[in-house]
Every structure is written in C-alpha cells, then in structure tokens.
C-alpha cells in the first residue's frame, strides 16, 4: 500500500530538517523553559506574597495567559511587541523585533504562567511547620525560601515541571504560523516543494513521538534518582 510513496525524500532532506529545524526547536524550548522557570518562580512567590497588590498582579497575569489560546498569544505578541518596544524606548516607529525573538518572548511569557502554577502548588505542598522551623532558627524569608522551601518544592514538582517542558517542546511547532523554520516548518517546506506531504508529516510525527517518549522516560529515572532517602 506504500508503493506510491517516496520515502527517499526523508533521507534527502534529513540534514536540513535537523540542522535548521530541530536546532531552532530545541533552542526555543530551552530558552523558553529557562526564562519561564525563572519568571514563573518569581510570579509564584508574588502570588503567595502577603503583599496584596503583588499577589493580585501576578494572579491577573497568570489567569489572563491561561485563558487565551497559545496561537492567539503568538499573534498578539508578534504584532504588539514592536509597538510596546517603541513605547518603552520612546521611538516613533515600531521596533523591528523579528519573528524569532518575538517567538522566544512569547513562549517565555506564556510558559511562565504555567510554570507559576506548578511552582505555587509545589511551594504550597511544603507544610507550614517547615517555614516555622526555618524562621525559628533565625533564617530570614529569603534564606528560608532558598534553603528550606524551594529545594523541597522543586523535588516535589520536578515531574510535572519536566512534563510541562515536554508539552512546550511540542507546542513550539506553533511558530509555524510566523513562518519560522522550526522542525515542523522545515518539513512543511520540503513537503510542499516536493509534493510529499504524507511522507514528511509522518516522519515529523515519528520524530516528535520518539523524542517526547524518551524524555518522559528520562523524567521517571531522574525522579527516582533525586528521591530523598527514607521518603517516597
């Protein structure tokens, strides 16, 4: 039944797909993850803060981001960031940001909202007594957070955090709409040029599956490795 297909197209284009496409996909994933976790942790601490305006601001941001489809956010930022940039630096013309930088900013800001909620759950999973114990020993807020709460919270939420990152890895394919050559974008270009849609999209799906499945498996192993002795 596969007689009419030309599987050779995969071999011919593989170099281009991985060199150009996958490199961008991985770079975007890593940048958005790093930025998202840092920003997400800050947002989570704001949401849990006793300073009401901070908590409200972070809560509003998170709820907004989580209520809008990612595809829309990508468009939004692509068209809005140049104007915001111009407003910030006081320029008359919209700042040329470019699709790639725009996508990095978008994914970082979008993922931060999800990482924030994971962090918040992780921080709240630490019993209040642990914070009391830190304070009672004379540790201040930042020391208690940094040495007592966050290290435990990170361990508890690591599986969810990494799973969210695997979802992010798959979601980066949405930059397709900005005509960026990510892995899917590169495959789509070849598919349309050579008229080999079925072959290319099937290949792309297999590659995404293998990588995501492998990463999920690694998450389980890492979880076992990081477990605290004497605890589940």
């Amino acid at each position, binding site marked *: 039944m596969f007689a009419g297909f030309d599987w050779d197209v995969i071999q011919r284009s593989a170099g281009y797909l991985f060199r150009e496409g996958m490199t961008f996909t991985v770079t975007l994933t890593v940048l958005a993850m790093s930025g998202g976790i840092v920003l997400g942790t800050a947002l989570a601490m704001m949401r849990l803060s006793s300073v009401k305006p901070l908590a409200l601001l972070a809560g509003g941001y998170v709820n907004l981001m989580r209520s809008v489809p990612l595809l829309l956010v990508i468009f939004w930022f692509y068209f809005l960031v140049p104007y915001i940039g111009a407003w910030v630096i006081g320029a008359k013309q919209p700042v040329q940001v470019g699709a790639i930088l725009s996508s990095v900013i978008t994914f970082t800001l979008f993922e931060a909202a999800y990482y924030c909620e994971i962090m918040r759950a992780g921080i709240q999973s630490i019993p209040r007594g642990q914070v*009391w*114990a830190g304070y*009672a020993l*004379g540790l201040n807020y930042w020391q208690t957070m940094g040495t007592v709460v966050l290290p435990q919270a990170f361990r508890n939420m690591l599986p969810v955090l990494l799973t969210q990152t695997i979802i992010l890895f798959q979601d980066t394919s949405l930059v397709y709409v900005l005509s960026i050559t990510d892995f899917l974008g590169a495959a789509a270009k070849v598919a349309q040029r050579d008229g080999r849609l079925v072959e290319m999209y099937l290949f792309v799906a297999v590659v995404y599956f293998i990588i995501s499945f492998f990463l999920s498996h690694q998450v389980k192993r890492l979880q076992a490795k990081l477990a605290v002795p004497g605890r589940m």
Partner: protein
Amino acid sequence: MAMIEMKDVSKWYGTFQVLKDCTTNVDKGEVVVVCGPSGSGKSTLIKCVNALEPFQKGDVVVDGISVADPRTDLPKLRSRVGMVFQHFELFPHMSVTDNLALAQVKVLGRPREEAVARGMKYLERVGLKEHAHKYPGQLSGGQQQRVAIARALSMDPIAMLFDEPTSALDPEMINEVLDVMVGLAHEGMTMMVVTHEMGFARKVAHRVIFMDRGEIVEDAKTDDFFGKPRSERAVQFLSKILHH
C-alpha cells in the same frame, strides 16, 4: 530576672479571639509547663514568644527585647530562642549533619567545620552520634525529635520553647525525648513547655500555667497546681487526664 515577659497578649483570628490578655513570665533558669484542653491557645501562646504567630495587642519581651516593636530584628531574636515542634520539622532533604549546621552557618556565620563539630557535640549528647550521615526520613519519630532538640541547642539558645514535643510520638518513644528535656531542665536551661505529660511537669516544672479558651486560668507553683488547683476548670482538666 525575667527572661520572657508576656504582657496582656491578645490575638484574634478575624473576630474570634484566640488569646485574651495573657500575662505571665518565665525567669532565667525556670521551667514552666503550659497545659490545657486542645484549642485553649497554648500552642498559639508559645509561638507568640518568638513571633511565629503575630498578635494584635500587648507585648512579649525576651531578654529585654520587645517582640512587638517593629524595629526589632526578629530573625536575630529568634536565633537566640530555641524551638522544638510537635512534628519535629527537621528539613527532610538534608542529612542530620546539615540540619544541625545550616542555621549556625547561615545565621551565626560560624565556619562550617566549627558548626558541624558543635552539632556533633549535641548529637552525641542526645545519643545519636552514629546517625549523623542519615536523613530524617530514615530515623524514628523519637530520634527525629532528639535531633530537633540538638539542632536548637547548637544555636546556643538563651531559652528553649517546646510545643507539644511528644504528642506526635508513639508511646514507647516518649521517654527518650522526655529524658533529654529533663536533663536540660536540671542543667538550668530556661524552658517553656507546652505538654500533656503531667509526670514531666511534676518532676521538673517550677510553675504550671493552665489555659482554657484563650485565657491563662491558673499560673501556680507546680506543687500548688497539682495539690490544690483553684479553678473548677483546672480540677476538671486534671481529673480527665490523670484518672483513667
């Protein structure tokens, strides 16, 4: 000389008053046991001493320093007062050694070797030297609580607060913890202890404070409290926990 002075301490959760004008003091070298029915405010009261629980009225003065004064360096004040919790609250992601050394290094600025050596000294004292490399989850409840006491002592506290230190322990482990506390009391440590262990109170407490519904109902010398409690509520409480 009063090490801990509480003056008219009152606290509300919303409109519900959990502490009503609590006034008492703990002298240097004195052991004071706080008892009372659950929900009477004992744990809340003891947590006011090192400001883990904020209060709205009154003041607590520890070694001459006011807890309510906004200018007070609370972390510094807390570092001088040891506290032991019902659920031990050792840091589960750190070895026993690191639990003992953490605050000594971060708060007191001691070099790590000195902090570890000091921690070991107190770990040996509570009889757990050979467990230094373990994690809290690998120890029994009684052992964890003894480590928690060693952790507090490593900070060279001027007073120790115990918040129901044996309530979460299996019966066979209660004595190993009480023994350490009795030892401390005999050495002259200033102690404020929330507990239902009336045997411990009889043995080492100089005074007993009885609380009910957020009030200090009785504040008496140990022999007087057990011999001739003045209030009806204390009589009832004692009959409930002593005769069964």
